[in-house]
């Protein structure tokens, strides 16, 4: 294999338990987003559009769907003769083998993989962020500053800074201190979890960190502070534009809703920076005479006969007559029956909802913060069901409820 200037390592192994039932059977980066995408599409497309043709995807939690989604990388133009996309799960090494213990450890366990390409720089990315970024500019910046490491930062409101890893920098943006979720932040430069390292430097730190039993093997908590205390040159690279960590249900929901802003606050229409995804080969979507669609995104393969307001309708969705979908995300291949109301909800993939149901209806009077209702993958909601606002339901729970109901009925009969 030829020498590469820079290869990317994409951390996609996180469990994503703050996404609730959505990630029960699915790795976070594979969660559907924006109608036709999955979260990982944004990072993979950024790589391709930035001219990075070698990407290692580190998977660990529920990787099956993510692996088959990535496949040979063809949708992102990452099926390359030399390089391309590689899915890297943890593996046995002789008699020992272990899970990825942290972000740094995940890279460390793949030193051999990286060495094959003998890269000068390595780009470390997260698989759960929604943004468009030209990494080649960041690498250029890193090179110009003769840095050992460069961390992409985004300026947040100072009052939000206590939720992020904050970089304290001098005038030239050189980082002198890193604070994880500081109570009294000195700066508003939040780490985006995107790092460029000189590979030879990082390698030594990773090897040393692995030997440190006290370490949590995390870039933010261990590697960066250690490098700073050794006086390494670390720069902050300021990113301007839309960036969202979609690690929680609320932020995933919000980021989807951001797509409905008109004119867009996150512009996906730029022909020079397309977001690629695996195509399903579905026909165009159909809007029936009975339908009423306003302020919505509608994807291929959907058929809409009902009313849609301020919602995301994903690929292959069916919404029957007289149903009303408001402020919701309907994920791929969900089917909604007749005369059903869905409000402030996330309906996961392949859910079937019957007729005359009410899901997540807002109580009278305006709710201050939107409280989301979530119906998990493959759930079948029978006719006339009411799902209260704020509930999370999946097919297993539905079965339990059904069994309980059956038992009650039996007991009632016996009496």
């Amino acid at each position, binding site marked *: 294999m030829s020498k590469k200037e820079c290869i990317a390592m994409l951390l996609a192994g996180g469990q994503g338990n703050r996404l609730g039932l959505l990630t029960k059977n699915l790795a976070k980066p594979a969660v559907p987003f*924006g*109608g*036709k995408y999955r979260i990982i599409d944004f990072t993979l497309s950024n790589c391709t559009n930035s001219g990075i043709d070698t990407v290692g995807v580190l998977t660990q939690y529920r990787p099956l769907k993510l692996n088959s989604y990535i496949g040979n990388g*063809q*949708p992102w133009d990452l099926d390359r003769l030399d390089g391309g996309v590689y899915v890297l799960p943890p593996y046995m090494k002789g008699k020992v083998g272990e899970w990825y213990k942290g972000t740094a450890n995940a890279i460390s366990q793949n030193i051999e993989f990286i060495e094959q390409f003998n890269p000068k720089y390595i780009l470390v990315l997260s698989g759960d962020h929604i943004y468009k970024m030209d990494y080649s500019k960041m690498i250029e910046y890193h090179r110009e500053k003769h840095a050992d490491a460069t961390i992409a930062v985004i300026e947040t409101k100072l009052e939000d800074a206590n939720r992020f890893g904050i970089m304290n920098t001098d005038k030239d943006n050189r980082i002198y201190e890193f604070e994880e979720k500081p109570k009294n932040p000195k700066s508003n430069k939040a780490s985006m979890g995107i790092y460029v390292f000189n590979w030879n430097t990082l390698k030594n730190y990773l090897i040393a960190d692995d030997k440190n039993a006290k370490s949590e093997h995390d870039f933010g908590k261990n590697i960066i502070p250690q490098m700073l205390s050794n006086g390494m040159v670390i720069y902050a690279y300021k990113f301007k534009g839309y960036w969202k960590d979609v690690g929680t249900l609320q932020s995933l929901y919000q980021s989807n809703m951001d797509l*409905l802003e*008109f004119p867009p606050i996150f512009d*996906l*229409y730029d022909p020079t920076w*397309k*977001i*690629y*995804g695996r*195509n*399903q*080969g*579905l*026909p*165009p*979507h*159909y*809007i*029936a*005479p009975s*339908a*009423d*669609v*306003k*302020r*919505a*995104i*509608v*994807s*291929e393969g959907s*058929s809409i006969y009902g009313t*849609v307001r301020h919602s995301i309708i994903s690929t292959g969705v069916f919404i029957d007559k007289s149903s009303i979908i408001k402020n919701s995300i309907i994920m791929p291949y969900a089917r909604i029956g007749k005369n059903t109301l869905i409000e402030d909800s996330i309906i996961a993939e392949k859910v079937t909802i019957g007729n005359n149901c009410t899901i997540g209806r807002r109580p009278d009077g305006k709710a201050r913060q939107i409280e989301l209702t979530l119906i998990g993958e493959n759930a079948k909601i029978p006719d006339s069901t009411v799902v209260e606002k704020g509930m999370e339901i999946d097919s297993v729970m539905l079965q339990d409820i059904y069994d309980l109901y059956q038992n009650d009925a039996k007991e009632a009969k016996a009496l």
Partner: protein
Amino acid sequence: MKELLGVIDASENHIQLKEITKNRSIAAVPIGSRYRIIDFALSNMVNSGIQDVGIITQNHYNSLLTHLGPGKDWDLNRKRGGLFIFPPYGGSDSQGWYRGSVDALHSIMRFIRRSEQEYVLVSGTYMVFSFTYHDVLKYHIDNEADITILYKEKKGMTPDEFKQNTLIKVNDCGRVVDMEINPSLPRFNNIYMNTFIIGKDLLDYLLDECQSRGESDFVKDILLRKLSSLKIYGYKFNGYLACINSINAYYRYNMDLLNSDIREELFIKSGPVHTRVMDVVPAMYSENACVKNCIVADGCIIDGNVENSILFRGVKIYKGAKIKNSIIMQDSEVHENAILENVILDKEVIIRRSKNLIGQEIYPVVISKGAVI
């Protein structure tokens, strides 16, 4: 279907759709919001498990080549076989211009001879349908037929659709017993779908024989003449067929796609219809959008009123615009308060604000590619 080689004859010069075919062949004409006409013939072959497909092209094949690329989107970029495209070329035995279907097929005979398959499935493009060919091949083999041709009953079709087409008479055993080419008063009940299966060696022989007599038309000079000396069988197709041989038919059949049953049959039943992937954003509807009975592709931004229409990828409809019974092709824009009725806009057309264009259902207005009005 390892035993079947696919050949698409996209050199159908005689089919013209006014301005729409000015710079593209009929095979490359956009249809149904996100497809090109050839996608159906090609997807039928791919969905039948055919792994080698040759495409014969003739005039204006540029947009066809761009559309097909290396065949990736049809899963035909293979190491063994895959997609082969044959633009016309001048050589010692050809003038680079096909006089007819025999010429066209003869020009790729070397490709056909060299293939591993025993049978060849040849299809045109402007007859649009979704189907898989397993049963046709079985029917061909079971009947020990020399040639099996696809046909559909003409019931429900209008007389102008028989133009440039062939009607056939089939007896009770399925044998084709008579044909009439381009009749003005058709006597026979079945329309030939420009699709047939034939043994490779027989095709080679027939083409050579026909060529040596200086004849050039497969239907007229081979099928019609050999009705009694060859076993030519008809396979009856019962599905949905759109014969796109005129601008009116083009308009009508696009509008047919607003019918859910027809969409189901064309796009779902026989497997997906593959087309070039463009990676555009899903369609966006604004607060002012009012859309009724439309099929809409990805990348559209709709801020106006659209009814009974077909919107292709990347179409922009501005506030106050009113569009009815129209076909708007890729990347066209209809600005504020413009009114369109029974109109076909080719790609990249811009209709400026408050302009009115009204056509008739039986005579839609066609605006050519890139026009600004």
